[in-house]
């Protein structure tokens, strides 16, 4: 930097240009997201194996999830992805006011999602469907048109149903934890935006949080059909 030419105050000394800096932060974020794919992937693979092993138990268990809440939350999360994408676009255009407005909209939608999740968890708690010593399940095959097979007659059928709920709580719980972290990141972004720390050439934190948020949306895009839509016909 001894040449004396002017460069952005946001340019860290180990980068040649803002473009290189921008691409590096994107690449780093994508590497983190690839790692996140593996983190959630382990759970998805385990889910796939047990669903393959106990298809009837998973079908019966999934029948107790409320498809309306699940679909509603999917829509809410897609809306929040849109508002987040618009927040990033506002950052690209340097519109500070809109960045904050769209971030607040995203946070409100995230709050709705987590609220619905709370209603669902409470309902499962009241119906003794939380895995543990008080787990109780009485099969009602007529309701779910699941054929009575060797598996449904298995003495530990309730245990297999409980397994589905273990997956349900761990996977949706980890997903919800990611959303709470996202909420924290958005509060941080709003503070930074209010302090005028973003400009059209530096808005990497907004963009990277956006990538994170869309990733969380994608996880739910898979969780919804896998958990709620197992055996609905």
């Amino acid at each position, binding site marked *: 930097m001894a040449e004396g030419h002017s460069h952005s105050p946001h340019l860290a000394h180990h980068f040649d240009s803002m473009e290189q800096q921008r691409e590096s932060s994107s690449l780093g974020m994508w590497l983190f997201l690839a790692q996140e794919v593996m983190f959630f992937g382990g759970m998805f693979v385990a889910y796939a194996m047990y669903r393959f092993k106990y298809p009837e138990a998973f079908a019966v268990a999934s029948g107790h999830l409320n498809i309306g809440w699940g679909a509603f939350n999917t829509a809410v999360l897609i809306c929040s992805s849109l508002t987040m994408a618009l927040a990033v676009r506002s950052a690209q255009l340097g519109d500070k006011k809109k960045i904050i407005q769209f971030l607040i909209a995203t946070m409100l939608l995230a709050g709705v999602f987590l609220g619905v999740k709370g209603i669902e968890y409470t309902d499962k708690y009241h119906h003794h469907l939380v895995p543990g010593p008080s787990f109780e399940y009485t099969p009602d095959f007529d309701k779910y048109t699941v054929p009575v097979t060797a598996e449904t007659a298995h003495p530990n059928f309730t245990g297999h149903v409980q397994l589905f709920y273990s997956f349900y709580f761990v996977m949706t719980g980890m997903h919800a934890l990611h959303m709470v972290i996202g909420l924290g990141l958005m509060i941080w972004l709003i503070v930074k935006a209010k302090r005028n720390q973003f400009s059209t050439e530096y808005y990497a934190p907004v963009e990277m949080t956006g990538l994170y948020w869309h990733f969380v949306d994608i996880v739910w895009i898979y969780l919804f059909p896998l958990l709620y*839509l197992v055996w609905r016909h």
Partner: protein
Amino acid sequence: MSEHGQPHISPLKTYYSVFGALMALTFVTVWVAFFDLGAFNILVAISIASFKAYVVVLYFMHVKYSPKIIGLTATAGFIWLLLMLALTVADFASRGWLPQGQPW
């Protein structure tokens, strides 16, 4: 990135179209789940979810307008997931194919 190294700014129309497609596909995935397609129910559900994930990655996450290395990283994450799934399924499905001796 454009030729001048400036980030691509998508028009609003792109975001609203992607949003509309995602909402429509959510409706379709619920609707189709109520038909008995046998083993194809899960296949259709996963295909729709994957298509939704694909448009989110391309347009909301800007991979379409990013350097190739970003697309490569995104694809690598997906391929590694498929590897994990494929090897686990191969192990799970092939157990009992060979006669087993007594465990040590």
